[in-house]
């Protein structure tokens, strides 16, 4: 018994130190965002700044129009999530409820899509968007995100459909429901948690995606937060203040979502990924 409490306190100390190290880059980002310019470039480094300022936040929102990029990211994220859910719910349902010849190929396509690198699509999608006139549009960007969100969404929602007992639908069918009504009225409401975690996953993907958005959303009125931050680094190497303020704000939506829903979300993701 004595040894066990000794081990426990070592684990405890280790976790405290490791948490500190892991949280540090992010905490440092926040501290720097609230420092005045002289303090940012102070020597020796100021770990506990005396003067806290909101000037960088004001600058990034008022002078650089950050709220516009923030709104663009929101639109893109919500739209991508909605489109992904729309496309993935039915195949997820069909591959759990029916034993048909195309089931295996569909499931295989999910696995194979996981392996496709984004870079393979960068040139074809550029040509595709130019050809369809969807370049520099939210809709076009949502569409090219789908190959990276839909397969994993089908996979995640499948796990939730699998937990819905078949007998529920069978009794509805006997009561005169059509096949679609049985799906729509009985099973679909029961997998809303699964749909929610897919929505979160997709939103976060779109929120931080850089390669496609940087290449396809070229006009400033359409740019997202990552694109803005990336271009800002390129243009003003040394203006760290607004860059950090923008970065802190950019981290808020995913942090909030994960903070509240992490347990639930992690369960959905890992069960989808490791259950064979």
């Amino acid at each position, binding site marked *: 018994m004595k040894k066990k409490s000794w081990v426990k306190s070592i684990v405890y100390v280790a976790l405290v130190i490791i948490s500190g190290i892991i949280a540090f880059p992010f905490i440092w980002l926040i501290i720097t965002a609230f420092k005045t310019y002289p303090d940012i470039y102070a020597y020796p480094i100021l770990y506990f700044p005396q003067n806290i300022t909101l000037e960088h936040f004001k600058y990034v929102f008022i002078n650089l129009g950050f709220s516009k990029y923030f709104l663009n990211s929101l639109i893109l994220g919500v739209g991508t999530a909605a489109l992904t859910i729309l496309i993935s719910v*039915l195949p997820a349902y069909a591959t759990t409820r029916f034993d048909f010849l195309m089931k295996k190929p569909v499931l295989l396509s999910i696995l194979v899509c996981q392996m496709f690198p984004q*870079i*393979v699509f*960068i040139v074809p999608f550029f040509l595709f968007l130019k050809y369809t006139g969807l370049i520099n549009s939210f809709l076009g960007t949502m569409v090219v995100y789908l190959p990276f969100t839909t397969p994993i969404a089908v996979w995640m929602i499948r796990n939730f459909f699998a937990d819905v007992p078949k007998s529920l639908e069978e009794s509805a069918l006997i009561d005169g429901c059509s096949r679609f009504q049985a799906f729509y009225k009985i099973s679909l409401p029961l997998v809303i948690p699964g749909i929610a975690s897919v929505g979160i996953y997709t939103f976060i993907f779109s929120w931080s995606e850089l390669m496609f958005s940087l290449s396809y959303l070229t006009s400033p009125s359409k740019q997202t937060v990552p694109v803005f931050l990336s271009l800002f680094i390129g243009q003003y190497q040394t203006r760290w203040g607004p860059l950090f303020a923008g*970065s802190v704000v950019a*981290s808020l939506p995913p942090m909030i979502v994960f903070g509240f829903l992490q347990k639930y979300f*992690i369960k959905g993701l890992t069960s989808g990924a490791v259950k064979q």
Partner: protein
Amino acid sequence: MDTATKDKLILNKKNSLRYDLTKNAFAYRAIMPYVVFILVLVVYPVVQNIIISFQVDGAWSFANYIDVLFDPLFHLITINTIIWTVSCVVLDFLVGLGLALLLNQDIKGGTIFRTIILVIPWATPDIVAAVAWKWMYNDMYGVLNDILMKLGIIDEYLPWLAVPNLARLAVIIANVWKGFAVSAMFYLAALQTVPQELYEAAAMDGANSWQRFTKVTIPVIRPYIITTVMLTIIWTINYFPLIFTMTNGGPANATDTFVTYSYRLAFRFLDFSHSTAVSNINFIIVFTIAIIYTLSLIGKEE
């Protein structure tokens, strides 16, 4: 095979297909949009990418691949990609499994540690992680040099992102910070599947904790490890925003990988032919690794 059996087989096949289509009509209608989407947005672009890479001035040619494969810069980038992927995958595995073991301990305040260790790096957007690390690595005002000096590990400020090998190390560390959490989550989920009785039985047989780890934990979570490592390899090879933002492949191409190189060819030099050749080479490598892993996984299970 005589014609009679052949006809019968064809008939059977036809019947079963027709039977399948009628019986599962709902399923086929349900997957239709998904199938169309896969064909238009996955199959077509992949094929197009291959076609572009084999064309020079409208004619079929291997020239793009030959140019790329005999370019010394591409050899350097291949080495970079190997260093980057192997280091990140090994570190993600070690850090991820180690932290999963720690977080799996039943202690007070476990949820808080779990939230900090797993959520902060993972939820931070890629570009923000890149910004934060770029600032920490800054040679004059960076906090990393200051801390390392105070700890006595270095005795002068290091130009982290300006020297090839340091820059390689720097992007690898930043990526492990960003990426280990996903591995840790999978390993944590895996550890929770290990039956407690196995540990108790092993303890009764006099196994110490290291033996319990190697003889009980590892064999049980082995399939999870293989899956996670495979996914990490694929994600790491394909990972773009961190390197792009922190170094954009520099200094002197020391941190250039297939992905950043291919991207630069396409969007800075508008050289789609060579860009697609590089991205297809990257694709073939990723695909081969995935196939080998999958086959070995299936082989082991049988």
